[in-house]
């Protein structure tokens, strides 16, 4: 497929650039991309003071926060690929700085930047950019490629109840996100229940996220584009020291109003495994989810968006892979 060929070419180009930059003998250039990623992982592992807080899941938040005065840098990579037709590849990246204001209140600042390739991927085979690039309207037959800064966000999480001292961990999350021609607030209720010496963790999130975009509105520059209302959940078990594995189940719904009882546009369900490793000051979390064939038409669903029971509107695709890497600063000596 053209999209996959494009990304393979990208990887090969990056690999060759790395050879040039590091001066490795040309034999290193014959290493597969998988080997290069292994090497990267080993380098990360060798960092002496790189460390971790605890995102056990790729998509579902838990109530664990940084202690007061501690900070953390996270790098997210979310790859979203495969539509019903054509080629589609969306690479979303996030660089985030987190800080523990108190032991139960955490603030974060982050920026998102993405790359997209799309060709004949939308309903009826029309080239349709991914949602971060929805401000673009390419020719229906164009090979669409773009890389751009997307948005900057401020996020706060306040923990009401700790799962270690109460029956149920409860936290409230609120985020303000602004980018080119859009503004979004994302609000989450986060629940966490622990079992088996806190090694078995259940997480549940309800998300309410109205998104305003420049759609040629009459009264103001931005007006409601959609409201995301998601139900994310996960279960994770620490099966050996430093290692946890589990499953995530996501239900994403979009509405053309501020309410969940009218103008529903899309609903999609994702399911897949998650693996988490945490060292003293470093962590990595990886999730792979696939959309389940459970999507149905609603009052405002775009015609042609659902194929084979899966929703392929511009914010949905068949597969998602998310990798989070983090380093924590401050703490025990």
């Amino acid at each position, binding site marked *: 497929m053209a999209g996959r060929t494009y990304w393979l070419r990208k990887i090969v180009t990056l690999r060759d650039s790395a050879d040039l930059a590091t001066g490795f003998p040309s034999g290193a250039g014959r290493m597969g991309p998988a080997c290069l990623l292994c090497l990267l992982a*080993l380098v990360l592992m060798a960092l002496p003071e790189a460390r971790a807080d*605890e995102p056990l899941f790729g998509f579902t938040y838990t109530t664990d926060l940084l202690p007061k005065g*501690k900070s953390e840098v996270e790098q997210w990579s979310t790859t979203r690929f495969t539509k019903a037709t054509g080629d589609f590849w969306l690479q979303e990246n996030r660089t985030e700085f987190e800080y523990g204001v108190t032991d139960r209140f955490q603030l974060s600042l982050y920026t998102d930047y993405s790359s997209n390739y799309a060709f004949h991927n939308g309903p009826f085979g029309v080239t349709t950019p991914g949602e971060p690039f929805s401000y673009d309207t390419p020719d229906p037959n164009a090979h669409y490629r773009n890389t751009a800064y997307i948005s900057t966000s401020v996020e706060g999480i306040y923990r009401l109840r700790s799962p270690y001292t109460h029956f149920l961990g409860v936290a409230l999350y609120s985020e303000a996100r602004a980018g080119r021609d859009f503004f979004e607030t994302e609000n989450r209720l986060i629940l966490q229940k622990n079992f*088996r010496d806190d090694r078995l963790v259940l997480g549940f999130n309800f998300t309410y996220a109205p998104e305003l975009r420049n759609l040629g509105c009459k009264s103001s520059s931005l007006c409601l584009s959609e409201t995301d209302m998601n139900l994310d959940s996960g279960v994770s078990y*620490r099966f050996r020291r*430093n290692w946890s594995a589990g499953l995530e189940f996501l239900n994403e719904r979009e509405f053309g109003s501020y309410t969940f009882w009218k103008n529903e546009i899309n609903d999609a369900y994702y399911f897949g495994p998650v*693996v988490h490793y945490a060292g003293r000051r470093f962590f990595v979390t990886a999730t792979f989810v696939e959309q389940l064939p459970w999507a149905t038409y609603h009052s405002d669903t775009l015609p042609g968006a659902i194929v084979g029971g899966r929703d392929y509107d511009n914010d949905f695709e068949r597969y998602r892979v998310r990798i989070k890497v983090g380093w924590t600063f401050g703490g*025990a000596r």
Partner: protein
Amino acid sequence: MRAKFLLLPLEAMVVFAGPAFATVYLTIEQAQSVLFPNATFQPRTITLTEEQVKSIERASGVHVLNKQIRVWRVSTGGWFIADEVVGKHEFIPFAVGLDDQGAVKGVEILEYREAYGDQIRNPNWRQQFVGRQPGARLRLEKDIRNISGATLSCKHVTDGVTRLLATYEIVLKQSGR
């Protein structure tokens, strides 16, 4: 499949991840000297039976992680127990000294391998365990004060001491002197 390719770094880490960095505060011998100065120690390894495990879990309300417990009979009377509890990512090795009646004489943190939560070494916090009696069901924020920012470590050490007090009552007390 590209998905497999993306997960390869994790597989690499499974193979190559070495032991995590640990801060050793006290060796077993040093902890013994702190808790029982001028005493000698006779080691015993006790393997709990299924029935004993169930009894301990019932009495303490705490899951038994390891059926083997490392205990030392103290020449001046009492017991020294080296054990570990679950931390955030690693185990937290700790030691408990019990007097001849099974009451807590002291708690020592032997190693700490986590980035946060090492405030459990604070002597004032550990002092709360001294004098706790066999069979006591200690609960964080009720019997033992919590340390904000170290909640998980506080909870698990509290649970660990509770479990060892039940272990004394059910196993050590009967095992003779």
